[in-house]
């Protein structure tokens, strides 16, 4: 379900954090982006275009024998299935706000990432290749939202970006661990089991959060997915 980003609860929380609505609109040095609905629409369309690539890619991967056959990895099947549904909801939410700001829906894939998928397709039929592709797309999505958080002028759009960023980062963390397990030739440890914690090597257990700060260097250009 897509939340209502203008709900009183969200507004109350923002006020409780000590930054009052009275400040909104003040021109200050270093203040957050001024409202520019046309630019915000471009950012939201780009975000939606990335979500569209993620949805179609997960659909393709889930149809492969690797993930649909009797020997499918249960964790990846669950993670990819949940992620596909979440990305569809994200695209809907981005398009909803884009249209409220006077823009058009973006139902097409991001052109840059679509090329990435095309190039990766031959290798994505094995476990490592499928994880690599998903990780590349999820990282691009998470870091695009990271970048957009400071660019969006519309407060509800920024809150949406912050909300989705957490979900994408969940995916990234888990996929980084999955990648490390496959690289170590121990995919059998890719299971949801409370005993997992005691069986992982240090370099695999910590693979999901390699840096103290997300660099944002995999973010897609702001206007790459804008509707032309």
């Amino acid at each position, binding site marked *: 379900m897509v939340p209502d980003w203008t709900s009183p609860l969200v507004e109350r*929380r*923002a006020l409780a954090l000590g930054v009052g609505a009275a400040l909104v609109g003040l021109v200050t*040095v270093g203040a957050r982006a001024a409202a520019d609905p046309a630019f915000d629409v471009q950012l939201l369309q780009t975000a939606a275009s990335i979500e569209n690539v993620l949805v179609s890619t997960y659909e393709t991967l889930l149809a492969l024998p690797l993930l649909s056959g009797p020997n499918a990895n249960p964790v990846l099947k669950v993670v990819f299935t949940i992620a596909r549904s979440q990305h569809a909801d994200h695209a809907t939410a981005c398009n909803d706000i884009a249209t409220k700001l006077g823009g058009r829906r973006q139902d097409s894939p991001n052109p840059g990432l679509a090329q990435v998928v095309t190039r990766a397709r031959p290798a994505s039929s094995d476990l490592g290749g499928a994880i690599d592709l998903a990780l590349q797309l999820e990282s691009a999505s998470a870091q695009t939202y990271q970048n957009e958080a*400071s660019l969006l002028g519309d407060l509800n759009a920024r809150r949406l970006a*912050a909300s989705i960023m*957490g979900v994408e980062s969940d995916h990234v963390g888990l996929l980084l661990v999955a990648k490390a397990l496959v690289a170590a030739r121990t995919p059998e440890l890719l*299971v949801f089991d409370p005993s997992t914690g005691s069986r992982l090597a240090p370099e695999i257990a910590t693979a*999901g959060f390699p840096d103290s700060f997300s660099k944002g260097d995999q973010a897609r250009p702001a206007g790459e997915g804008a509707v032309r």
Partner: protein
Amino acid sequence: MSGAEVDRRRFLFLAGGTVGGSALLAACGGPSPARPPDDTPVVTSPDHLEGDLAIAALLASMENLLLNLYQEAIDKKDKLGTIPPGVMAVITTAQKEHKDHAAAWNGILTGAGKPGITGVNLTVKSGSVDVPLARAKDFGTFLSLCQDVGTLTATTYQAAMGSLQNLAAIKVAASIHPVEQQQVAVLNFLLGRNPPTDSFRHVDGARTTTDNIG
């Protein structure tokens, strides 16, 4: 130099820029948080910080709380039984990252002429950490507590991104929030839990600048 460091420096540059730190502080300072009901103790932010600086202090206090929580496992390993090498690596790596995050926020505070935050979020510590930490007798229970506090911190970052006014501060928060969430995802995996199915993260439960820090 990391992106976060660049952003922190930009924040500091702006804080000491031609407009002057006082003007920025005035711009950062919003109205005081809504007063709680009369029967609730009033707790003010440290040094009466307001606006973005109060949020920076809040986030530093959450990072310090996590840093101290992980230190408990390092100091009292025996109490939690034998901690496997992979779990200990998670503890030490996560602790190091929280230290870096706290340093980023304290750099912003000290750059604006305010004292850094060395204390922890006492509201969360007394309300959600002390009792479960005392009861934790194995590393699984301990990791579950870390997951809870990590989730609370990530939620607070999410709320902060919707409230911060200063562009550089938003960038710092946006560069840390994904890392907090990645840590939570890994802790979930280590605990054998399925990933959350909700398509959106919500700000319910996010900590506020009325929390007690010390």
